[in-house]
Each structure stands twice: as C-alpha cells, then as structure tokens.
C-alpha cells in the first residue's frame, strides 16, 4: 500500500511564554483526511499547541511543516499562500462584529479570489446553508446565540474550501444537540470534501464521535499520539483517569 505523506509534520517543538516552558518535545505526523483531536485537561497546553502549529505564536524550537514545507522559516508571502489553504474556527468564533454574517464569509473570497460577484454570492449562500444559517445571513454577530456564532465561524473557515481545517473547542459551551450537529458537520467535511482536520477539545462525547487520532497532552508533555482504541489500551494512568472521570 502506498504510504501517505503527512499534511502536517511537527518535530521537537518547544513552546514558551517568556521563560516558562509550556510545551516540550512535540512530535506529530498528521495524515491527510484524518481528524486529529488534541485533548487534555485545562491548562495542559492544547490551545498553545494549536497556535504554535499555526505560527500565531512563534515556537521556541523545532519545526512545523505543512505539505512538506517548513512554515516557521518561510517568508510572509509564502506563509500567506499556505494560510489560504487552511481554515480556522476560533473558540469564540472571532467573527467581525461590525459586518453581517454574509459579509464575514465574503471577506476571504473578495480578498483572495478573482471570482465574480454572482459566483461568490452562491458560495456564501451554500456555506451558510450547510451550517443551517441561511435565514441569518444578513444578521450581525451580536444578534446570534453562541452556537450560531460557532456555526457561522465554521462557514467562514470553509469559505475558500480549505483542505486543512483547525477548530479550537468547537463544542465548548454548546448544548449536546448543537454540539452533536456540529460534529456531524465536521465529519461530513472530512468524508465529502476530503479535509484534514485538527480539533482542540476536551468534550468526551465529541472525541468519541469524530476522532481518528488523538494527541493527549498533560502539563505540557505529549503523553500519547495514536488512535482512540490504542489510547484506551495503552495503560497510561492520566489517559485512563481522563476517560474514566468523563464517563457518563
């Protein structure tokens, strides 16, 4: 069988805030069309890992490669080209408050493509329809509930049909039904659009529904990287405790 080339390769990554080390010795290969879930307790470094992977924070050491190219050493223009192929769903949604949902999703299409207004309009409408927000397209973010904001932010992250999607706590603060529907949507993005997805979460139900692989962090150290089944049989006390306590 042909060996798949990783979409993301992280080697010996160290992340620091000032002099304090937050993450050390992170080594990960994320394969195409996989959903990788970064999990761990509060303060374990999940969001820090995600932001260091995306150069939102500069890692103190190590390398991060997207599609074989080191994003930490590439210049701004080259990195912007990489960013155009990635989408990010922020924990708070991070929608621009002064403009409507329609305009929020229109921004990357207007700025980065030469598409006609009619084609852009159809792309925006279908993305909002996919997340179930067709009727809210002319509303402003301040008029939406938390779950709607998350879904709108996902529509914006999908605007350019990126092959790589990052989600920071997509289900946090959502009711179980909305959370499950968001998970369904993420799964269909993987299945239908062949997306590679990296998700930070500590929602156990969500992890069971969507994870192909998990990265388990504990106090800034990567304790485990592999499938969920492997994690459960690995006999690592912190992981066993995490799944045991969260059982329902």
């Amino acid at each position, binding site marked *: 069988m042909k060996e798949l080339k990783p979409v993301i390769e992280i080697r010996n990554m160290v992340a620091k805030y000032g002099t304090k080390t937050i993450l050390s010795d992170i080594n990960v290969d994320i394969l195409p069309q996989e959903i990788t879930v970064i999990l761990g307790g509060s303060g374990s470094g999940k969001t820090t890992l995600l932001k260091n992977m995306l150069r939102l924070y500069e890692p103190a050491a190590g390398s991060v490669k997207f599609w074989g190219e080191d994003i930490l050493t590439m210049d701004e223009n080259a990195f912007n080209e990489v960013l155009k192929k990635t989408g990010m769903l922020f924990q708070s949604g991070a929608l621009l*408050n002064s403009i409507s949902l329609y305009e929020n999703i229109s921004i990357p*299409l207007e700025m980065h*493509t030469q598409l*006609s207004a009619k084609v852009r*309009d159809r792309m925006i409408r279908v993305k909002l329809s996919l997340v179930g927000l*067709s009727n809210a397209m*002319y509303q402003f973010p*301040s008029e939406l509930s938390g779950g709607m904001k998350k879904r709108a932010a996902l529509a914006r992250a999908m605007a350019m*049909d990126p092959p790589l999607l990052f989600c920071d706590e997509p289900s946090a603060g959502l009711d179980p039904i909305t959370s499950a529907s968001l998970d369904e949507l993420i799964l269909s993005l993987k299945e239908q*659009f062949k997306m590679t997805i990296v998700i930070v979460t500590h929602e156990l139900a969500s992890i069971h529904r969507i994870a192909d692989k998990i990265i388990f962090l504990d106090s800034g150290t990567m304790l485990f990287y592999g499938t969920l089944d492997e994690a459960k049989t690995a006999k690592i006390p912190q992981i066993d405790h995490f799944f045991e306590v969260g059982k329902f």
Partner: protein
Amino acid sequence: MQIELTSDALTLTGELNHHTVPDAAKEISRLFKEGTISKIDLGELTMIDSAGVAFLDEMHLKLSEYSKEQIFQKVPAKIQAMIDTYSTLELPLVEKPPKMGFFEQVGDSLLNSYNELVKALTLAAEIFYYSGVGLFSRKDQRRGSLLQQAAQLGSEALPIVALLSLIIGFILALQSGVQLKNFGANVFIADLLSITMVREMAPLITAIIVAGRSGSAIASEIATMEVTEEIDALKMMALNPIAYVVVPKFHAITIVMPLLVMFSIIVSILGGAFIAIGMLDIAPHTFFTRAIDIITIKDLIVTFSKSIWFAWVIVIIGSYYGFQVKGGAEGVGKATTAAVVSSIFAVILFDAVFSLLYL
C-alpha cells in the same frame, strides 16, 4: 483547465476550482459569442470545489433559458456528489431586509430620539433619587468608593486642567493685552481676564476636559460591566447598580468639579499675570487687586452652580450610554464615543442657557 467547444457541447477538462473559474468564465463567455452551447460535458473533470459548483449553477441558469436537453452530461459520481452538496439552485432565496424610505427614516429616528430622551430622563431621575438616598444611607455603596472616585475623577485631572488653564490665561492676556495697549488701557487686562475666566472659560474648559476624560471612563466602565454581565451579577446579589456604581461617581464629581474650576481660575489668572506683569508693565499689586475686586459673589455662585450642573450632565450621559450598550467590545467603543460627544454638546448647551439666564 481546458475548455473545448464541439458543435453545441462544451467539454471541461481538469480542475474547476476558485483558481481556474475566473479564466474559465472569460473563455466560456468568448465561446458563447462564437456559437450556441446547449450542453456541457463534465466527463473529464477531475476535481471541483464550491466555486466550481457555483459557476456551474450560473451556467445552468444561463443555458436552461433555451436548452431543453440535460445540460450537464457524463458527470462522474464524485463530481455529482459535490454538485449535490454545493449547488444553490434549490436553495430558497433569502431576501435582504428592505431599506426604509425617507419619511419612515425620519419618523423612526424621531421616535427613537423620543424614546431615548425618556430613558435618559428616567435614568437621571433614578440617579438623583439614589444620590439623595445615598447621602443618608451608604449601605449600597462600597466603603472607600467615594474617595476612590474623587481621586479618579478629580485629582488625576489636575495636571491637564492646570496646563490648559495656564495656556488659556496666557493666550487671553497676550491677545487682549496687545489691543488694550493701543488705547492705553493696559490695566483693564486684569478685569477682562478675571471676568472671562470666572464667568465663562474656567467652568467650560474644565467641563470639556472632564467630559473627555471622566465621561468616557464612566461610559466605558459601565458598558464593559454591562456586556460582561457584571451589572446582572450586582442585581443578582440584591444590589442596585445605580446606587452601587453611579452614585459614588455622582457624589465624587459634585465635590471635585467646583474645586477643579477654582483651581482652573487661579492658574489661568497666574498665566495672565505673567504676561501682564512681564510685557504690559502692570504692577503685580495693581493686577491682582483689580482681578479680585471685579469678581462678585454672584459671579462665583453662578460659576460653581454651573460647574455642578455640568458635572451632573457628564455623569448622567456617561451612565446612560454605558447602560444602553449593545453588542460586545465594539458596542463599548461606540458607547464611549457617543458619551463624550453628547456630554460636550450638552455642556455647551447648558453653558448657553446659563449665560442667557445670568447675563
């Protein structure tokens, strides 16, 4: 992406995505001019994204106007799956909310202004009520909050009030002194400076500074508390937000504003004295005697009561915009800006009213 026209069929080969759609659109538009197109062969399409599907939707609409045939031919299964997911042809059209007509807009803004005025007056009444109650019972206020607010709203404004008052006294003396010297009336510079600063400039300048500094601080503090649910939290702790948050500010500013005005008067007269004594050859004793003698008790009473009114207007407007905030961080910014602009406007308006009443 390759596009080929054979008889009435268009064949698309390769990838149809947001990179290739703009060029494909140009090429197809050129081919439309060359001949009739009634169907599109998608058999050689290897990849499509939502931009490609949106483009095909546009093509479908255009061709279905005259073509009775199946428009997309030989569609590979994976391309069909993407079309099924991303096509907008079956999506219901969501209308943009209609814009109001001119008269509707005028009526709406008048009604909004009336409602806002009612809300502002209600808030003002509540502030006056709780401030009155707060004089006798401080149970809804935190210990030390009055002193803290007095320091924040008053003493921290001292340097900027001092600097501006000194400069204004300086400029006023310089400009009017040059004119008075032509008539040999140098000595009247003291009278002019004293009357102008006491009756008009000191309270007005101080109020504008306080509106910009403290009015914005009041509005942003309350607006932030509102959006972060701190106001709701106070209510849930059985505390009245006006009594807890606004009343200490109201009491503090009522005390510090006349003091700031007094300070402004003294500093500005000192600034004027510097010019009068140094450049217009007026004896210090003569300058200060004339400057003090010209002021009446009525002038001082009007000035200080005016400054208290200005202070109240600033607190009420700042609180009003703070409590009315909508949205998140952006709403806080808007509330702050609106509070400063409205406070300065209201201060000048009140000043005009006072000038008419106590000429």
